[in-house]
């Protein structure tokens, strides 16, 4: 049995008449890049939200690093090492780039009921902030207000914030969304660099990126997992071709 970092056991989630997750059992091994793909409306973001703790499943269990986290609130999961980036850029626009990252660093350094010392000169925050900035290639932009970054840079910052706490698992919700070809290449390189140092669950529409990055792929259709396997395996899977790739090949 391989070493699983994240496992879901028969997740169920309904929104009214729509079944967003159906008997969903997902397995992410430690150290792999696992991609979650599927046509629009397949329930990919719903899965991410359930894993991150933003919505609670109707039934089923979620195990993370050997611990059941099904009912834990989002902030507790983050503390356990489960970080996520958002599909729609979700950064603190009124703060500088460095402050954005520093907040993420701060979240993993014990409580923040520290009322006195100025956070901007806090040595304990500065060093990890700088290294996180370097990891996503934003070290030149650290003093710039986040609002004035370019779109691609905002996406980098988005991922940088998720990385700053040295998570065990990174949930990337469409990191390439809305990017031009140049940005996509840059982001692919970034994820490639991260590969091996942590586990990544990647939701992405850019199939080129998915096939070049993912160790294994799970295909989701109408909330249900219809196939799991390597890129090779998925490409040739008949059901996948019919349900999914067939529609995508214009």
């Amino acid at each position, binding site marked *: 049995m391989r070493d699983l970092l994240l496992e879901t056991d028969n997740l169920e989630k309904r929104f009214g008449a729509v079944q967003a997750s159906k008997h969903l059992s997902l397995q992410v091994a430690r150290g792999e890049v696992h991609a979650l793909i599927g046509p629009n409306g397949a329930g990919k973001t719903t899965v991410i939200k359930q894993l991150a703790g933003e919505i609670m499943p109707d039934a089923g269990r979620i195990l993370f690093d050997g611990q059941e986290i099904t009912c834990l609130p989002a*902030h507790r999961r983050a503390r356990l090492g489960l970080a996520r980036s958002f599909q729609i850029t*979700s950064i603190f626009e009124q*703060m500088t780039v460095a402050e954005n990252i520093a907040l993420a660093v701060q*979240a*993993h350094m014990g409580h*923040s009921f520290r*009322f006195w010392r100025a*956070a901007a000169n806090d040595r304990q925050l500065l060093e990890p902030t700088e290294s996180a900035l370097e990891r996503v290639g934003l070290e030149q932009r650290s003093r710039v207000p986040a609002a004035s970054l370019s779109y691609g840079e905002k996406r980098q910052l988005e991922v940088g*914030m998720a990385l700053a*706490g040295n998570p065990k698992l990174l949930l990337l919700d469409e990191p390439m969304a809305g990017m031009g070809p140049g940005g996509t290449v840059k982001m692919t390189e970034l994820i490639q660099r991260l590969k091996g140092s942590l586990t990544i669950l990647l939701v992405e529409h850019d199939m080129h990126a998915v096939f070049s990055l993912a160790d294994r792929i799970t295909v989701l259709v109408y909330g249900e997992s219809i196939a799991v396997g390597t890129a090779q395996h998925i490409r040739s899977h008949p059901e996948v071709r019919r349900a999914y790739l067939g529609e995508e090949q214009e």
Partner: protein
Amino acid sequence: MSFSPFRRRLVLGTGLTILLLLPAMASFAGDPYLITLFSRILIYALAAVSLDLIIGYGGMVSLGHAAFVGIGAYVVGILSFHVQDGSLLLSWPFELQASDAALLVWPAAVLISALMAVLIGSVSLRTSGLQFIMITLAFAQMLFYLAVSLEAYGGDDGISIWSRNRLPLVDLSDDSSFYYICLVCLLVFLYLSHRLVFSRFGRVVRGAKQNELRMQSLGFPTYRYKLVCFSIAGAGGGLAGVLIANQNEFVSPGLLHWTHSGELIVMVLLGGMGTLFGPVFGAAALLLMEELLSAYTEHWMVFLGPFLILVVLFAKRGIYGWLSGAGGNHA
């Protein structure tokens, strides 16, 4: 955004100089009422700064801040009532003597206001947006009715305080000394708030204002941080209440009335939301305007109302932002 440190220092320096020299200027001008008026301004500034901590930095629009001002004032009033009366504050479960020593009464009042803020905040902060506004309003109103129903303490009519609290070395009944005590309280609170806003805690609170969901996914239990911020603001409001009770030598349910909360919001926005010093300018502007307009007409509110609407629609940066060229959330 034009941000000039020099202009900012000039504005703050001028303001501070005026406040420091005010009693001297008042006696030079032969108008002791100025001292009373400016003491009032300082006290309301303190209340407004504390409100700005939650509105401007924490994004929690409370329409019930006057409740904490009222609680602080009532603690002073009730204690002084018992001191005057010679009766015990509590006879059960243990006997407790009332006191009028400022060093005892003031911290107690501030603490009680903060605890009430924890209580009110813990329910209110389960909601956000419109509901939060209405709930804070409703809680304040609840305490207002509680104060009205306190027959033993004057009910509707409130409590007259026979003498201001006692402080060693300083005679609070002297208006100039009292003025300086108010100034010290305001400056200390401003300094504490300054530390707070730029600390790790302050960053978390500002982050929660901008994007609460993201803060949670980063690992912050935002509710707790907001609650602590809410109660710190409550403590500030309580201190302002303590000073008001001492200045007026009178407390009444009117202090807790929701229009009073509304006025505090006006001060914050008028001065500049999310700036530490803005609310001080806002308090000064509103109270001075009230003073000037009411000299001309008793119906000055007919003009104040539309003026507020114009401020909202066209002058969002507030007086401080306009004077110093600074936008919100920087200082």
